[in-house]
């Protein structure tokens, strides 16, 4: 039976406790760091050669959908009542709102070194030592809202702009597309300054610290953020009935994108699944 993913701000005290406990146990078992490594390994930029499955590519959404399902499986092996809550950053927009509370993810990093000092993922608690990181610090870091040069989370209207696009993705299927739901949501902008980040990308920057780097999975908010991004895909499908994942077929022999993106019925590494098979997950989970 399908389980439910809830808005993190609506979790009961018991749900929060069980979620945190399951996360810490997955970390203790060494499974969590495999997810961190996998995300680093599959981050292939579009100015490079090779197959892009996770970022700057149409399969950004199905790749992260499957990635979340995998973590959720690990969590549910610990506690079958747990699912990944989503963080609606269009509603919970401050550094003290959900999920930044002591009984969930803890708060902002301290000024001196951006170390997260509160909540169950604080280094001093002893349960969340970073193994795979960009820096040599073993502690989780955050810089909510970017203290030095403040930026805001994406607005409802910016997100709505992505959802209004009736086409899933467009050629050249990378970070340079200015049309298509996928990149409008993934958020690769053009130009300099704050407009360079949009929607999904901008949230990574707003959280800052670990979340803005290659090892962003180290911050558990990664999953709540991506659950909300994943929810947008479901909402987009509801809004644009019949609209499908694109491209439906691999790019032709003359295309520079040939062999570098995943078409609807192609395998999505590292898994033995296709984007097509991930378009409907209603038998696995639903959003509340």
């Amino acid at each position, binding site marked *: 039976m399908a389980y439910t993913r809830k808005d993190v701000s609506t979790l009961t005290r018991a749900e929060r406790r069980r979620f945190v406990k399951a996360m810490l146990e997955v970390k203790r078992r060494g499974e969590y760091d495999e997810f961190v490594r996998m995300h680093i390994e599959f981050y292939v930029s579009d100015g490079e050669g090779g197959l892009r499955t996770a970022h700057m590519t149409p399969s950004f959404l199905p790749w992260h959908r499957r990635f979340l399902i995998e973590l959720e499986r690990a969590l549910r092996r610990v506690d079958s009542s747990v699912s990944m809550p989503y963080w609606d950053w269009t509603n919970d927009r401050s550094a003290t709102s959900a999920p930044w509370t002591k009984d969930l993810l803890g708060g902002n990093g301290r000024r001196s070194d951006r170390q997260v000092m509160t909540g169950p993922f604080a280094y001093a608690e002893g349960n969340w030592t970073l193994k795979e990181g960009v*820096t040599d610090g073993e502690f989780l870091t955050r810089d909510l809202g970017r203290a030095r040069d403040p930026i805001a989370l994406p607005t409802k209207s910016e997100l709505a702009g992505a959802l209004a696009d009736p086409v899933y993705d467009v050629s050249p299927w990378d970070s340079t597309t200015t049309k298509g739901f996928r990149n409008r949501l993934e958020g690769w902008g053009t130009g*300099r300054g704050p407009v360079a*980040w949009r929607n999904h990308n901008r949230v990574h920057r707003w959280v800052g610290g670990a979340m803005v780097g290659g090892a962003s999975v180290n911050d558990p908010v990664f999953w709540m953020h991506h659950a909300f991004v994943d929810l947008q895909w479901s909402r987009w499908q509801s809004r644009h009935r019949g609209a499908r994942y694109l491209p439906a077929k691999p790019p032709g022999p003359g295309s520079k994108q040939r062999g570098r993106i995943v078409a609807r019925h192609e395998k999505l590494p590292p898994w033995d699944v296709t984007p097509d098979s991930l378009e409907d997950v209603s038998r696995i989970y639903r959003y509340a």
Partner: protein
Amino acid sequence: MVVGVGGVPVGREPSAKGRARRTSRRDLLLGLFGSAAVAVALTPLVAASRSLRAAEPPADVVFDETYRGRHIRGIQTAATSAGRTLGDGQWHVTVDGRPLQLMRRADGTWLSMVDHYRSYATPLEAARAAVDELGPGQRLRDTGEEHMGGDHGVHA
């Protein structure tokens, strides 16, 4: 670290074409000469300028400066293989002596391992942005050079 532009052998180049590379490289030079904070390593720059005038691949383009208390350094090793276009060298960028991994975007811009969700016009800008994001007291993890270079050396 060693970054092959495009990260792939010649002949498998992705969509970042020569024009984007030249722009990026020119921006790098402008950035170098335009910034008061830059402590320029003159010799390779002169060599690079000469090479530019001669429309030859440059020997080295180096930035070497202190930015917000951090020593950032970038070396572009000259491309020696026949058939490589201008700017098609390899980048070594370090922050306080530790390698900063860079990736190239299809539009010719650069993103670093520290700042992975937006890109910058030049490796210098990407290195400065990485310093901004590192925050006080944090050092890049010393991953060792053995992980760098090769076909996939541009990403972790």
